[in-house]
């Protein structure tokens, strides 16, 4: 056992966050941010290698547990975190030169970004359902500060709604956690281990079904608020649209995933205790409702980031639906889709960020001709959009293909709903993005060249997975899917 890597993984963001807070906004602060994120990513890769080589393991006693399921999320999180920090370098410089952000705000941004990464990594790696809750709440707090970074009325309003809705939601999750502890205690006794997931899984079939059902409802509603399941999603478009774009990218690409990850951990337990359909049906129902509603929301959007926020909701609905169906294929597809969505959506937000900076507006109607302003931005937005809409050969299609075919096989009645939603979403999003990318424009170039590498890095990965999923990734997904039962 080599705990140092794991410690490093958590320590880097924590320490660098603290450093960035203490030292303030300096010339090298963005680089420190990037280096820290890169270090985190490196640590996550090493950790992954370790897990792949030696199998799941504990850390810090039994408080942290890393298996193939969460190590994968850790890598993904660290990766997107790294690319986001790269992206935010020039982005934030431009913001500062536009006078939209001052140095203290930038300090806040960077430290909170690292803290956010820390909380997410804790949430992903912890073995304790209580700590999971604490980390989720902490993630909310850090992101609230990030969302309100601009201190404009709109961003404050968004942050307030975010705080209150997610706070209330997460309180429900706490109630669920209490009930879970209650159920576990009856089996495991009053040790501190009763909230440890590894212990809970071992005894999941003995947990009292009534309590577990109730607990799962609270957990689903609670964490589901953070996932953005309809009708609990209302905070999400506001927060995405009003925060700085890098924050939108990590919210969409990572936070939603982590919340869903929390639900998945709970689902495993609920499946074991209650009849296997209970949690699944609930998730399928929420998933379908979310998917459908989000698709119809898309049509009326005037703000580009808001629109992609709804797109995130839509995809979260689809993923939730996939996990709700359960089974090896659907779970696999769900994980794949989460990955693809994270990568693609954050890439889109990067592109959107540059686009909005170039044009000085987030209004769809005012953004035109990106491909003339900067062909790379234009193409990346176009390709990203097509990818997120499920056009092959991008990876999103692979997962959607699997989800759809699985649904067709096991729940044929859901296919019309799924297809309606996907079709409507396609029409709406594409109809809005196309004139933004193409068309005429008069915008001028920006002082700092955009960091476009992250976008294409993401899209290249998505493209690769659409055509070829490397065997180790498959193995990961399979392991993870098996863990979900």
């Amino acid at each position, binding site marked *: 056992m080599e705990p140092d890597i794991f410690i490093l993984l958590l320590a880097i963001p924590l320490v660098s966050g603290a450093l960035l807070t203490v030292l303030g906004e300096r010339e090298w602060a963005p680089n420190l941010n990037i280096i820290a994120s890169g270090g985190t990513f490196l640590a996550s890769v090493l950790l992954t290698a370790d897990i792949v080589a030696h199998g799941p393991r504990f850390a810090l006693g039994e408080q942290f547990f890393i298996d193939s399921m969460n190590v994968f999320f850790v890598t993904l999180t660290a990766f997107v975190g790294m690319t986001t920090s790269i992206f935010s370098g020039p982005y934030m410089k431009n913001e500062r030169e536009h006078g939209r952000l001052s140095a203290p705000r930038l300090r806040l941004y960077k430290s909170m970004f690292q803290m956010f990464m820390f909380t997410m990594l804790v949430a992903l790696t912890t073995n304790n359902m209580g700590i999971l*809750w*604490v980390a989720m709440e*902490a993630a909310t*707090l850090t992101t609230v500060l990030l969302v309100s970074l601009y201190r404009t009325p709109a961003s*404050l309003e968004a942050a307030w709604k975010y705080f209150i809705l997610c706070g209330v939601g997460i*309180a429900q999750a706490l109630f669920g956690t209490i009930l879970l502890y209650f159920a576990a205690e009856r089996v495991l006794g009053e040790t501190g281990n009763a909230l440890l997931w590894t212990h809970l899984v071992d005894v999941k079939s003995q947990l009292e079904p009534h309590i577990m059902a109730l607990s799962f409802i609270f957990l689903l509603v609670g964490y589901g608020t953070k996932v953005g399941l309809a009708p609990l999603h209302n905070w999400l*478009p506001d927060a995405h649209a009003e925060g700085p774009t890098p924050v939108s990218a990590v919210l969409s690409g990572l936070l939603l995933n982590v919340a869903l990850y929390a639900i998945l951990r709970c689902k495993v337990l609920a499946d074991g205790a209650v009849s296997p359909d209970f949690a699944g049906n609930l998730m399928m129902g929420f998933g379908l409702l979310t998917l459908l509603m989000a698709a119809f929301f898309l049509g009326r959007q005037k703000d580009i980031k*808001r629109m992609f926020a709804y797109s995130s909701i839509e995809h979260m609905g689809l993923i939730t639906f996939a996990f709700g169906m359960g089974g090896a294929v659907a779970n696999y597809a769900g994980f794949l889709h989460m990955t693809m969505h994270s990568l693609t959506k954050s890439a889109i937000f990067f592109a959107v960020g540059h686009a909005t900076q170039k044009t000085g507006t987030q209004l769809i109607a005012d953004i035109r001709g990106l491909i003339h302003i900067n062909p790379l931005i234009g193409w990346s937005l176009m390709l990203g959009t097509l990818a997120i809409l499920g056009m092959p050969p991008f990876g999103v299609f692979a997962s959607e293909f699997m989800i759809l075919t699985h649904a067709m096989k096991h729940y044929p009645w859901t296919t019309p709903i799924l297809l309606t939603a996907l079709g409507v979403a396609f029409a709406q999003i594409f109809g809005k993005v196309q004139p933004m990318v193409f068309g005429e424009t008069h915008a001028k170039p920006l002082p700092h060249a955009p960091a476009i590498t992250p976008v294409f890095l993401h899209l290249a990965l998505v493209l690769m997975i659409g055509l070829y999923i490397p065997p180790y990734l498959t193995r990961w997904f399979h392991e993870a899917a098996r863990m979900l039962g």
Partner: protein
Amino acid sequence: MSTIPLSAQLINLCASVILLLAFAMLAQRRVMQLINLFALQGLVLCLSTLVVAVTTKQHHLYWSAGLTLLLKALLLPWILHRLVRKLYVKWDIESLVNVPTTMLVGVVLVMIAFNVAQPISLLSQTISRGTLGIALAVVMLAFLMMITRTKAIPQVVGFLAMENGLFLAATSATYGMPMVVELGIALDVLVGVIILGVFFFQIRDQFDSLDIRNMERLKDN
């Protein structure tokens, strides 16, 4: 009937008081009074935890009781008081719509909560098991309170009252969560309130009031 031990009776009493306070908060228009009621609720919560701790000899429950007292009965009310003073909203009065209806809805919620909790609390072996329903009811009432409030501070108080309900649930169903979790929760709550405090000032700067009805501009329709 008389088999219920004294401690349990005390706990039930505390729980009932908490529920009563929840109703009182639901109907309370003045912000200062609301904070006071919240502090009182925290105190009763602390008492009930203490009773459980004494009865069951669970050591960590002493710690949680202390934590509750410190945080919910003293620190948070103090912060809130300070905020109210600094924000000059001491005499803010909310125009609650239709208090009787709200109360009625509250009663229905209590019934629902009891019904939901009933089968579960029977499974519990804790002496405080009967209060699980009350805890759920408190959570829901706090929820209702957040829905009905139009000012920022009372909404936050509602949010904190919900935490109280959760804490009651934790002690009543399971004699409290593991210590590390409780500490984490407490820390989160504290940080949350501090952040919110900062927020209040920003909101007031931007909107000239803490009325959250001003914050309805981000919408789609």
